[in-house]
């Protein structure tokens, strides 16, 4: 198994002592098959135990280890060292405040996620005795890709609109709202539209498309946002031009 020396330039920030973040360089002897997260774990164990970062599953499922690797939002557990030059720049996810080192403050995203009600609001509430909410394979396929979102926030770090307009609800939250709006069992669309059909919702998106390009789970939030725009436009015309069609 081959080993090579990799230089990691990691953005450090200690709120107790630092006025602003600074880069710290670590030389790490890495195995060929390592990902950036392995290198960070090695630094934490053998070189500098003060380094802080989030991680959990090491298999691109939990969505905790999102960070900027050479300027691109990536999951550190999915970024193989062999795909990079010998000096790799590691920074916290862009557009989020830095709590400490590579750990960001994600309260804004969590609050936005809650606002769009990303859970099933049944059309006709049933008791357990009445059985399950059934769905055909075609109805499932209609929204299935959006269920793969792991809330890693790479799309927020890639989205310049979110960087420039912090009030923008953003790609993942809108995609998840759209996921439930597209669900044949759901009846909560009107409640979610209040958030996602607003200016701070889908209309702040100018279709850069970066969110979909960086998604590690191949979800297409950009597509969801454009579909929300079309649906909210149809809603508006229906309400203003053909009010009798409105239930």
């Amino acid at each position: 198994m081959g080993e090579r020396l990799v230089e990691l330039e990691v953005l450090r920030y200690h709120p107790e002592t630092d006025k602003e973040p600074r880069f710290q360089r670590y030389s790490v002897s890495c195995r060929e098959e390592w990902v950036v997260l392995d290198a960070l774990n090695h630094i934490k164990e053998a070189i500098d135990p003060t380094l802080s970062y989030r991680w959990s599953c090491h298999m691109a499922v939990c969505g905790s280890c999102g960070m900027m690797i050479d300027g691109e939002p990536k999951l550190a557990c999915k970024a193989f060292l062999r795909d990079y030059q010998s000096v790799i720049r590691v920074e916290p996810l862009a557009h989020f405040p830095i709590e400490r080192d590579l750990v960001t403050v994600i309260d804004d995203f969590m609050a936005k996620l809650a606002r769009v009600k990303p859970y099933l609001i049944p059309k006709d509430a049933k008791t357990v005795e009445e059985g399950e909410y059934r769905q055909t394979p075609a109805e499932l396929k209609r929204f299935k890709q959006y269920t793969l979102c792991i809330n890693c926030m790479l799309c927020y770090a890639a989205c310049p609109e979110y960087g420039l307009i912090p009030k923008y609800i953003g790609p993942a939250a809108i995609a998840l709202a759209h996921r439930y709006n597209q669900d044949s069992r759901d009846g909560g669309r009107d409640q979610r539209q209040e958030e996602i059909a607003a200016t701070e919702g889908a209309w702040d998106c100018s279709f850069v498309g970066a969110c979909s390009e960086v998604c590690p789970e191949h979800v297409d939030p950009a597509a969801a946002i454009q579909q929300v725009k079309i649906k909210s436009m149809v809603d508006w015309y229906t309400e203003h031009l053909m009010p009798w069609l409105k239930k």
Partner: protein
Amino acid sequence: MAEKVSGKPYVRPITSEWIFRHPRYLRYMVRELSCLFIGAYTLLMVWGLKQLADGPEAWRGFLECLQSPASVVFHVLALAFALYHSVTWFNLTPKALPLQLGEEFVPDGVIAGAHFAGWAAVSLAVLYFAGAF
């Protein structure tokens, strides 16, 4: 309930540097910029219509104006940007207009292709009515 961390989070300033962070942002900015040329060309058309309404003399002046080197340069640029604008937007249509037939989604190429075919048909119709054939 976890205890709230009482740090002093550092907010990084947003600069225009993001445009150059990845080629995708530059491509996006070029697409956004293309609308200026589309808008300018539309104004030129409106001006042309006005000259046409003002009579043969004004119309001849407009046609001569179009032949100036600056006008030729503008038209070449506007054509390039209009093509970029149209091609990039048509390629994005499958995202905004997915079509599910039965269980399967219609392939992206078919949806974008239908838009390109419509574009070609309208262009041919315009050329036909303009007497190009």
